[in-house]
């Protein structure tokens, strides 16, 4: 399997009135061809900022301060954020699906025009071919009656259908990577199931890679091959999906899995085990592990040493923790 995207030591900081926020602080990850990746974490952990950085969509007061983003043998950070190379990459080779499709679709332009615009811009299609292709794409993503609905405006579609349109737009130029930022958070569970199933099918069909950014561990359990867990701007655990869920090793991942109720547990049979405390304030972080104040496995070493680097604990499984949790569970 060839590596499509390799991000190394990415750092994105925000200069706010309260101080410097290290939203992404030394994140490394890679994506293989045809792979589905899950990037999991709570709000504020830097998962969205990471992918926005890869797309170079960070706006002031944010700034990418360090790192390498290797894509097709080139470091994307060498390109200007709005330069011609980046514009040829973004929206064509790398595309994005947002959480709330209503804010990413232009409300006063028909679906047809919004879709053909991309095709004309990136693939040099003429209007007629582009329209035919757009209808075909809508059929692919399961919009019923695509040929007539293509001339509708975004508000005439339901939330789930708008998200399908977004998916159609994201795959329209046969991208190498699709980033989906909380793609199903704004829709209902049954619609979520439809959309996830659809995305999985499309990934195999057009042989692209998909990164699902989400706070919901369940969403990635079914489809992702590999998972990265982020906390406070860093990746704290990564590995093959089954391994992460079967054998979580970072105290934060363990906490996350324990704190969600499982289906079928008898009422009152088991209390949830929450993660106590709050996610850290990203300003003026101490050099020690950011999870330390909430950790139930901490040792003296954790209090003294800086935030640990990722270490391997077996087959492609990495954690950023000093403690060997396995013996203690």
């Amino acid at each position, binding site marked *: 399997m060839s590596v499509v995207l390799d991000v190394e030591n990415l750092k994105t900081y925000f200069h706010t009135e309260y101080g410097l926020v290290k939203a992404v602080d030394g994140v490394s990850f890679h994506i293989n061809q045809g792979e589905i990746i899950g990037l999991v974490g*709570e*709000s504020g952990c830097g998962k969205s900022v990471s992918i926005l950085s890869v797309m170079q969509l960070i706006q002031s007061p944010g700034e990418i301060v360090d790192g390498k983003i290797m894509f097709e043998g080139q470091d994307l950070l060498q390109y200007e954020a709005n330069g011609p190379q980046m514009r040829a990459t973004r929206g064509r080779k790398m595309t994005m699906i947002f959480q709330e499709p209503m804010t990413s679709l232009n409300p006063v332009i028909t679906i047809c025009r919004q879709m053909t615009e991309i095709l004309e811009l990136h693939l040099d299609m003429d209007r007629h071919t582009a329209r035919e292709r757009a209808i075909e794409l809508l059929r692919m993503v399961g919009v019923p009656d695509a040929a007539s609905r293509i001339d509708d405006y975004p508000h005439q579609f*339901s939330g*789930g*259908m708008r998200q399908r349109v977004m998916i159609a737009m994201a795959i329209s130029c046969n991208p190498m990577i699709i980033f989906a930022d909380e793609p199903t958070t704004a829709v*209902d*569970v*049954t*619609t*979520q*199931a*439809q959309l*996830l*199933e659809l995305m999985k099918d499309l990934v195999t069909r057009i042989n692209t890679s998909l990164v699902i950014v989400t*706070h*919901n*561990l*369940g*969403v990635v*359990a*079914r489809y992702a091959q590999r998972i990265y867990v982020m906390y406070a701007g860093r990746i704290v655990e990564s590995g093959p*999906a*089954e391994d992460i*869920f*079967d054998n979580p090793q970072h105290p934060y991942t363990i*906490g*996350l*899995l*324990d*704190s*969600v*109720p*499982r*289906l*079928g*547990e*008898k*009422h009152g049979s088991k*209390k*949830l*085990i*929450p*993660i*106590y405390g*709050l*996610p850290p304030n990203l300003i003026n972080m101490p050099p020690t592990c950011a999870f330390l104040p909430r950790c139930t496995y901490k040792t003296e070493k954790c209090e003294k040493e800086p935030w640990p680097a990722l270490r391997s604990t077996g087959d492609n499984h990495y954690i950023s923790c000093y403690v060997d949790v396995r013996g203690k569970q």
Partner: protein
Amino acid sequence: MKEPDNDLMVEVKNLKMYFPITRGLLKRKVADVKAVDDISFYIKKHETLGLVGESGCGKTTTGRCILRLYQPTSGNIIFAGKDISNMREGKLKPLRSNMGAIFQDPFGSLNPRQIAGSIVGDPLKVHDMATGSELDDRVAELFQMVGLDPTMKDRVPHEFSGGQRQRIGVARALACRPSLVICDEPISALDVSIQAQIINLLEELQEKMGLTYLFIAHDLAVVQHISERVAVMYLGRIVEITTSEELYENPLHPYTKALFSAIPIPNPKIEKTRTHIVLKGEVPSPVNPPTGCHFHPRCHMAVEECSRERPPLRDIGGGHLVACIRV
């Protein structure tokens, strides 16, 4: 008809809540949004009834009807033995101190220009239950009860995190020591690691204060965890009601089954082996719902008869109620 039961906190009978859609200058009614379409259920004292369904199914409207934030179109709501469905606001006010409400959005449900202590004390002031130093003491006590530091009572909401704000919301709901609390999606706006804290808090408080909950949520796993009994709603109607365990072990309504299957389970092994029912199509509009059983156009078990008549919610034994003619 059964005898008036003293064990019941709330009894809802044939509740309908239609919102008119009006057009033009004269506000001519052109249609109704049938948000809640003839539902009946009860909540026993000290129990938690979960109300689950997708957005637009009428679960929030049901909660608001019980709180009498809406005037129901028809039907009866019997709260603690009194029919409140047509009660006037003046007579209703004393009863309101006996009902608490927790809202979904911890950002929108607290007045940003009011300090936390005053927010929590508001119900006590409204019902003249405490003044002066007694009020301060009671507020401090409430803060401690929900796990907040009472010294933070002079802060405004935006100085709290989402989880802390929801704790303020819980404290406000419990200020007058109500017996019934309507929890409308109390955790869905919170981060995963915080959700469990709030669920545990609600469970502890229920035990301590003998509360009765109506727990409204879209997440079946959460609802199942916290509730003794669960009601599943689809497009304004209840399609199935039973105990939490029975619902999981023996879901009967095809919609309940689909809902279970749609919930992602954080375990790839289970996920890859279990069968998935992916529903076709989308939830129809409550303005113009399908005839007969509302679910029939999306149902894989549907027969012709399903489109003709509304299936009654019938007991198939042991208090398991289901509205489907095919089971």
